[in-house]
């Protein structure tokens, strides 16, 4: 049995890309599986290209990289067309959607958009427009995606979000948001900060402001319970911050984060990125975020729980500890999103289902 790639070796690729020159074929094979499982093959192509390391990649791996690149390049093209269609559709009700996450990265041409794959387009609209947006989309051929009853109820009652929409002819999924953090968390972001600072891209589409885009990506990572594919998120944040620092100081992000109440999350992100990419971001933090630098418990939590939890989830690289860390992050994600009166019944339902699935097999609820 060939030597297993360790989590430390995996992380080292991103701080010391030339460590790849020491990889043997079995390690490249493991890396292929881990990156493919993390949806990061296309992004890895561009990472290697930036680092001028494509020539050292073994042939078999090269083929998979090019395939993934071709797929993600095509998606970039598709996003441009789909966002055009969406804007035209919503123009009929004078609604100008703000594109979030993957679609926004493509429209704004941020460094992380190349090679990145996405499964849906996310838009942000005013809460008051939700109902009208829903009926308009339906008139233009979008249909609500079927969710199982419990999840559907949950969405409507607690998440106050529309369920995802799907365009059967074009095979696109659309997520519609009216804020960038689940309302159930109790945190409200003032509309003036969300919509008042948006910017227009070259093609005339709307995205969040630069600092808001970074903060959204960070919130998305830390107000989440599923950490199986989070390595990509931290990679996103790293590249977004790198772009940002070319134009502005980190201070402006820290100020905005303080105003919104996400100083801790900014610290988490920067500390993780420093650990993985060997950057010096924590040093440049200001305001509330900087205060966490010397908090022992916070640093312990980052190093021992979050860092192992955001490693790609794959049998090849999982350790009992990283599985445990991911469970902690799972519980934490739920706790953050839900007040206890919601969380307890929710966990009860999910727990019962888990019990049934343990006995009957994990596919009992599939139709």
């Amino acid at each position: 049995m060939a030597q297993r790639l360790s989590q430390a070796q995996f992380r080292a690729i991103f701080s010391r890309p030339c460590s790849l020159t020491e990889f043997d074929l079995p390690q490249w094979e493991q890396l292929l599986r881990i990156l493919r499982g993390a949806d990061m093959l296309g992004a890895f192509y561009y990472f290697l290209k930036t680092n001028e390391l494509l020539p050292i990649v073994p042939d078999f791996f090269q083929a998979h990289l090019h395939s993934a690149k071709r797929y993600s390049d095509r998606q970039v093209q598709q996003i441009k067309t789909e966002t055009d269609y969406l804007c035209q559709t919503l123009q009929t009700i004078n609604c100008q959607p703000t594109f979030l996450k993957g679609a926004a990265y493509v429209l704004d041409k941020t460094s992380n958009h190349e090679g990145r794959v996405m499964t849906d387009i996310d838009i942000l609209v005013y809460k008051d427009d939700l109902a009208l947006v829903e009926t308009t989309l339906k008139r233009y051929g979008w249909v609500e995606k079927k969710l199982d009853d419990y999840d559907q109820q949950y969405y409507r009652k607690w998440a106050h979000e529309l369920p995802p929409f799907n365009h059967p002819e074009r095979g696109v999924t659309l997520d519609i948001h009216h804020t960038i953090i689940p309302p159930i968390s109790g945190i409200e972001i003032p509309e003036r900060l969300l919509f008042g600072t948006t910017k227009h891209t070259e093609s005339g589409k709307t995205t969040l402001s630069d600092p808001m885009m970074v903060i959204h990506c960070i919130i998305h990572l830390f107000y989440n319970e599923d950490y199986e594919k989070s390595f990509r998120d931290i990679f996103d944040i790293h590249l977004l911050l790198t772009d940002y620092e070319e134009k502005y100081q980190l201070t402006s992000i820290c100020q905005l984060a303080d105003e919104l109440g996400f100083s801790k999350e900014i610290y988490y992100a920067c500390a993780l990125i420093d650990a993985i990419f060997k950057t010096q971001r924590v040093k440049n933090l200001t305001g509330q975020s900087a205060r966490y630098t010397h908090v022992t418990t916070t640093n312990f939590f980052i190093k021992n729980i979050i860092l192992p939890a955001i490693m790609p989830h794959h049998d090849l690289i999982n350790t009992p500890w990283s599985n445990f860390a991911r469970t902690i992050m799972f519980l934490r994600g739920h706790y953050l999103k839900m007040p206890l009166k919601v969380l307890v019944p929710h966990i009860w339902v999910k727990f019962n289902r888990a019990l049934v699935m343990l006995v009957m097999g994990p596919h009992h609820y599939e139709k």
Partner: protein
Amino acid sequence: MTSILDLGVYRFAIEGCPSFILPSLSTLYDDSLGLFPDKPIDFHLTIKNTSLLRRLIKPQVSIYFDNQRPFHPIKKSLLLPSIEWGLNWCIASFDFNHLLIHSSVIVKNGKAIIFPAQPGSGKSTLATYLGLTGWHVYSDEMAIINLENQQVRPMHRPSSLKNKSIEVIRELIPDATMSPVAVGTHKGDIAHVKLTTRAGFNALCDADVIAVVFPKYRENQSLSIEELSQTAGFSRLVHHAFNYNVLGIDGFNTLKSVVDKSQFFNLSYSSYDGLNAFFSDLVM
């Protein structure tokens, strides 16, 4: 245990491969099973039991591809067809370096005829019959077309037969090497047929497509062959090329080159009499 399947174009590893399935794999894949153990693998499939209880009662297994589980769990006895579908799924989901057309491919004199068709049209049965009567079958399921030279590439795999086709081939070619029949999959009864040895496969080269035939098996239908224009052929081919929309300009150029070199036919038949002669004429 882990078994390697070397299909030529792709290399697969099947982890957790239950031992009862090995004789079938060994018969169908010949020396491609376990070939070149030290070469890297493109796709790993992992077979896992679904739960403790289901290990004892009505045993079920799932096929995982890294962390994904593309199909519903299946009865353990139906594993072989699911492995075959798993291979197809990996290729179709991840290979954007080739133009993939849902089609059988038969080759003689270094010239390829492809049979693009929907499931149930008889393309696999036709390819199997021809593969056992003098033709090389490059695939009974997908034409893998090289984007650089626009030629179709061979893949070492058995063909798969559904339901009545199993009896049809057994009657026509009694000494065909066939796997045990998996009864009652979601697509019906399935059997796999070995079409070539590894040594036979090694002699195959990429081939130009010179004809595209859209087959339609209809009971009691007399043989009917109708030539189509290249324009009509092109639009029908696009319909069967399942990664065409991802490949962009390379996909278009490849398909155009195939169309430029090809004749197109609609074919309805209920018996194989005369087909061999017709196809042989095309590759003269």
